[in-house]
Structures are given as C-alpha cells and as structure tokens.
C-alpha cells in the first residue's frame, strides 16, 4: 500500500480508456494518447479490480502475493499510470484489504504483454514523413 502521510493512495481506470478481455489477456486503448496495450492474466485481474478504484494492498492480496509482490504490483500500476490508463482517485475502494485471492497459487506478476502506438498509416512505409506514412510505390495501372 502506498501511504502519503495518513492518506492511502487508491487507483482507478482512467476515463479515456476502452478495453476488452481476449482470452486471458485484456487489451486496453488510451483514446487520448492513441496507444494500445495488452495486460497478462494477472494484469487483467488487477484491471478488473480497478473498475471502482482499489488500493495497492488490496490488489496485491487479490493476486495472492506477499509484501515483496506488493512492490511488483506497484510497479505495474505505475506502468499503467505512465500509459495514462489509471489515475489516482479519492473514491472509496470496492475491495477491502482482506479481499480473497483470485489466484491462490503461485504469485504471477502482473505485466504489460505488449504495447503499440496507433498510427494513421500503421506499419506502412514513409512517403510524406511529416504528413503521413505509406508505401512509396507508384501506380501500376497506367
């Protein structure tokens, strides 16, 4: 748990996000930064718990982790915050610190599996570097 004086910091999903669970992973888009990330299975558990806001201790408990694991959960939440996907909130947490572990087995650190910047011309080649990107090919019809 992160404490600032007497205050416990809680986190919640940022408003500018949309997400979808695909298999064990959760794919999340930041509609403002136009970046997309995928969260591994443990990360997906954390993401679900962040729906209504949660404290770090509750998140770590949810994954069945010990104090050392709390540091990894903090690192993950900070990574989400750096992506603009979560933000600190003063709202009441939906989870109590006594939350039962979703994964009572070995602790698997939550992680961002991949991230992609969403571009107007995706993986295409550069043609107008400062305007757009696409293949530098000439029409073959004429």
């Amino acid at each position, binding site marked *: 748990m992160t404490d600032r004086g007497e205050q416990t910091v809680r986190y919640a999903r940022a408003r500018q996000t949309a997400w979808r669970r695909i298999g064990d992973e959760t794919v999340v*888009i930041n509609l403002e930064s136009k970046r997309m990330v995928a969260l591994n299975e443990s990360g997906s558990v954390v993401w679900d718990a962040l729906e209504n806001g949660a404290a770090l201790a509750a998140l770590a408990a949810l994954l069945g982790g010990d104090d050392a694991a709390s540091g990894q959960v903090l690192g993950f939440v900070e990574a989400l915050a750096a992506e603009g996907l979560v933000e600190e909130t003063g709202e009441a947490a939906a989870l109590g610190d006594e939350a039962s572990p979703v994964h009572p087995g070995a602790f698997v650190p939550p992680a961002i599996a991949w991230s*992609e910047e*969403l571009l107007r011309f*995706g993986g295409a080649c550069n043609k107008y570097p400062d305007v757009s990107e696409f293949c530098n090919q000439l029409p073959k019809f004429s």
Partner: protein
Amino acid sequence: MSASSPAPRRTRHVLESHSRKTVLTDCGGLVVAVASDDEAWLDLARERFATFPASGDPALTVIHGIEGPERPVASRVFTKATAGFDAWYDPSTREAILPADADLEALGDLLRVLLPRLLPDGLAFHAAVLAGAGRGFLCVGACGTGKSTLADLFPARALCDEIGVVRQKAGGFAVHSTPFWKGRSGSAPLAGVYVLRHGVANARHPVAPGTAAGVLARHAFWPTDDPRAMRQGFALLTDLAARVPVYDLAFRPTPEVWQTIAAETTA
C-alpha cells in the same frame, strides 16, 4: 449510403459537381465519386480505376479543379509545402477538393488519407487481399514482407496488394479490396488473417488472439483525428482478433503456398 447515415448537406461545390463529368469507383466497399471538368484528367482517372467500378450514392465526392474550399469548416489534408499539392476535406458534406494541378497520384494519396474516416463499420489495413472459393484472406505486413509478391503469384485470386478493408457484416466480417495498387473490385467473407514474412518453406502458425490484436493494431490505418471512430475501430479490431483466426505465414514465392493459405482455418 446506408439508411442510418444522414444525408450530407450539399454545398455549391457538389452542386457544381453535378454539372461535371464523374467517375465512380469502389474503395473498400465505399462508392467514391471523382468529378472534374478536365476531360483528359478524368480519362486518366477512369483508366486508373477501371477495375474498380461502382454505382450508387457516393460516401465521398472528390471535386477536381477547385482552388480552395468554399467554407472554413473544410480542413486542409495536404499542403504544397509538405506533399507537393493542396487538398481539403469537409466531413460535414463528405466533399474533398483538389486543385487543377493535382495529379492522379495526389488523388490516390487523398483517398488513402480519408479512407479510415469513411469507415464507421470497418478498418483499413496495410495488406494484400486474396479470395478463392468464397473465402477471403487479409494478408498483412510491412513493405517488403511479400504482399505484392503474393498478389503477383495469384492474379486470379488477388483483389489488391496494399490496402485491404475489413468491414462488419451480419454474423462476421467481410474483406474488401481497394484500388491500391493492383487488383480489382471485390469482397469475400473473411476466413483468416495472415501475417506475412518470407521463409525457406511454406508454414503457418496460429497467433494467440491477444497477441493478434497487437499485430493487427500495428498494421491498421487508424482514424487518429476522430475519437469516436477510434473507439469504433478498437471494438472492431478486438472483435476481429477474438473471432477470426490469425496466422503467422512464412512462405516461398511459389504457387504451392496457396495450399497453405487456403487450408481450413479455425478460430
């Protein structure tokens, strides 16, 4: 135009375009009208889009031969300083304007820029499109990974070799061709997506849906200036990754690769 889409407000430009000669072309299942008074220019456009004929109400009207927008709401898409030509687009009327000195390459570039904004039910990808026996395949990859090579191998099955469009249809997805660069108008139910790379043998390996979402995102043309369209694109892309089989495809440039592509696909 679909019944749910409001009719765009007509401006003087479109009214003028009615007196101009027009070429209609298919671009990802959308009808694009290209209007010009310049007969020679229009003949070139007609030739350029000869294999992509279309009919019906246009989703976009490109008016050639106008030096600037009538109304300030039109946004400048290209500038001479950066692209060598000027172009404007007004989303409220779905009109684009090209000056008289814009050539057909400029027209093609304009269509590629505007295409992602015109697809509320679809996404464009940097991809070749193949189709056979009623099944369509989207073959994504960066330049040099084999899109054109694959299209050249199968002229009867290749619909296009640079930009493919996936659109939602009842119960699934359809893949559509675009006039970039070689190919012909066409669409088919989407049976699978291939992520291309050259290899020493033909082999395909399934890509897990979560990973596939990232690969597809990398090769999509995102409507980055339209948050609502970005949200719709995200919904479509993740649905696509979850429901359509995606494979890594290593291939040799020989016709035998079709057996690998057309093999049964399972999500």
